[in-house]
């Protein structure tokens, strides 16, 4: 096992290898394990620290936020025009955002994959061709359906309400093994049951000889002419600040897997991938909305699997309902008012149920360089998606009322909860977009793959169009949003890219 932390470095360091992988999440971990097992000398660089899975599971949610969530969970994509601003969450830790997901593993719909294959004329991207890579990663990360017995009362209430009005629900698949329903997957599992990549692909990579370097912030790709020869960056201290010491890793190939928000920044800082004008554009987010409902009965939605069931009944309208629950404090924060007004709602937290609604968006986001090393994200929601927001919220409120909810809390800043008779008259259509509370866990598309160098950043193989030896293997290469949680697809795409590199 070879792990080194940049925190301990008191000098500049130069290394060399066959492949340097930047980022240790769903994309980077898969690439590192696959290439190391194929006999290549791999160095993996991660900006964040190491956090043991069991230690993460013992943390309070806010300790997880302050330790490994990027910006402590406060990253915002600023809404432009009539668009909501969107809280975009990700992690900076060994294992990347796989450490803070709910573990949901969907394959992309065949129509999405076949559409990519057809429109981009990439013949090995259709559902049949991708089946091999999906099957491998499903086995590797132990994807299994969530048993009905692990559904929380919160989830069951929404399902009961939906089924009363003809909306079917299904069990989700997740990468878990031994889940007992602690309801806190995204803040670490107390049983180590969430099979994030720190528990499978990264140990495999290490066993096959890969070196894992943490607390290493990659700032640019080193090039000679039209070929990349490695990466350069700086070590990071325990306060997440760059130290004075630099590292350089020289390699035959560079694989960038820093995620859709960071890979474009490295490329831009390196002066690469500018030709198409697509770098940093085409950002899709899967804008998501939490709707909460108060019931007369105690719900205690935190007992059970955090995410367990979904409905794609309104798939044609670009909407998916995903079960979810959040810590008490997040529930309370979504309730209106301060002081006495807020207290009368927060005293009823045990009676609150919650469900999530997600849009299969058209994109419209963009990354900009900003002060320091973090990007500025902006998001202009398409007219079609914007029109879907009130419809999504009405449908979710209707389901909760059908389940017997006394009141529903819509995600509109400062709005009072509504009762069943209020729903028809709720002014959702005329509410300005910036007043909707919206979140995203799925930034995608900022280095889109394609077969036309004028409209894409990477080739169908994952290699940059304008520089040899630089590959991208994270959510940024997905040409469009998926309408489903993308973790499994990112892993499968990374497998596909890795297979090309091995061969």
């Amino acid at each position, binding site marked *: 096992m070879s792990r080194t932390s940049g925190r301990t470095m008191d000098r500049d360091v130069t290394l060399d290898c066959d492949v340097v992988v930047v980022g240790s999440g769903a994309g980077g971990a898969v690439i590192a394990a696959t290439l190391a097992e194929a006999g290549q000398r791999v160095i993996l660089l991660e900006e964040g620290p190491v956090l043991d899975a069991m230690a993460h599971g013992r943390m309070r949610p806010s300790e997880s936020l*302050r330790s490994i969530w990027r910006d402590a969970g406060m990253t915002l994509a600023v809404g432009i025009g009539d668009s909501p601003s969107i809280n975009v969450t990700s992690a900076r830790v060994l294992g990347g955002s796989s450490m803070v997901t709910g573990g949901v593993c969907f394959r992309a719909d065949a129509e999405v994959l076949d559409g990519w294959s057809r429109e981009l004329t990439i013949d090995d991207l259709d559902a049949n061709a991708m089946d091999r890579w999906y099957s491998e990663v499903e086995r590797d990360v132990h994807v299994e359906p969530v048993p009905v017995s692990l559904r929380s009362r919160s989830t069951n209430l929404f399902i009961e309400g939906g089924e009363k009005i003809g909306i079917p629900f299904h069990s989700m698949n997740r990468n878990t093994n031994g889940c007992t329903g602690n309801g806190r997957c995204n803040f670490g599992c107390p049983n180590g049951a969430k099979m994030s990549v720190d528990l499978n692909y990264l140990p495999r990579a290490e066993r096959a000889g890969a070196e894992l370097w943490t607390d290493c912030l990659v700032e640019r790709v080193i090039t000679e002419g039209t070929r990349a020869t490695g990466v350069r960056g700086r070590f990071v201290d325990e306060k997440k600040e760059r130290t004075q010491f630099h590292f350089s890793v020289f390699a035959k190939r560079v694989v960038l897997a820093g995620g859709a928000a960071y890979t474009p920044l490295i490329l831009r800082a390196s002066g690469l991938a500018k030709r198409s004008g697509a770098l940093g554009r085409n950002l899709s987010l899967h804008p998501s909305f939490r709707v909460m409902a108060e019931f007369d009965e105690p719900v205690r939605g935190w007992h059970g699997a955090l995410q367990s069931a979904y409905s794609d009944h309104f798939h044609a309208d670009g909407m998916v309902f995903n079960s979810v629950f959040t810590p008490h*404090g997040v529930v309370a924060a979504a309730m209106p008012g301060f002081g*006495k007004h807020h207290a009368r709602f927060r005293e009823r937290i045990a009676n609150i149920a919650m469900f999530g609604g997600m849009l299969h968006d058209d994109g419209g986001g963009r990354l900009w360089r900003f002060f320091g090393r973090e990007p500025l994200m902006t998001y202009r929601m398409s007219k079609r998606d914007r029109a879907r927001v009130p419809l999504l919220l009405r449908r979710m409120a209707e389901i909760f009322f059908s389940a017997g909810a006394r009141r529903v809390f819509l995600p509109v*800043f400062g709005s009072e909860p509504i009762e069943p008779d209020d729903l028809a008259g709720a002014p959702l259509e005329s509410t300005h977009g*910036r007043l909707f509370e919206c979140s995203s866990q799925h930034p995608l598309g900022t280095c889109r793959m394609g077969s036309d160098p004028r409209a894409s950043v990477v080739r169908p193989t994952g290699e940059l169009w304008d520089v040899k030896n630089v590959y991208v293997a994270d959510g940024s290469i997905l040409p469009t949003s998926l309408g489903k949680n993308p973790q499994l697809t990112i892993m499968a795409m990374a497998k596909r890219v890795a297979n090309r590199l091995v061969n």
Partner: protein
Amino acid sequence: MIAEALFADDGEANAARLDWLIRDLDDFLNRAGARPRLVFALCVAVLSLFAPLWIGRFTTLSDLPLAERSRALHKAEGGLLGPPALAAKAILCILWFEHPDVDREERAR
């Protein structure tokens, strides 16, 4: 100032729990990194300066009596100040509900 306005039920907020919250908030912001610290400070500054305008008062939030402060913040969160109000409220609520008493209260229910 904002935490006191948020968690005052009838009269005043629980002082011991507020002290615990402020200590934990300090640790949270110290460990979260420079950008979250800046974002949080901006949210507090914006709320402090502009929230009183929502109830027609031309002063800072800290100069308002507790009940007026709660009312100003409540009004402000439904308007342009919704995002900063939610950001501040989210962090304060997450920490508040992690106080050791919450588990005890939960088990007692």
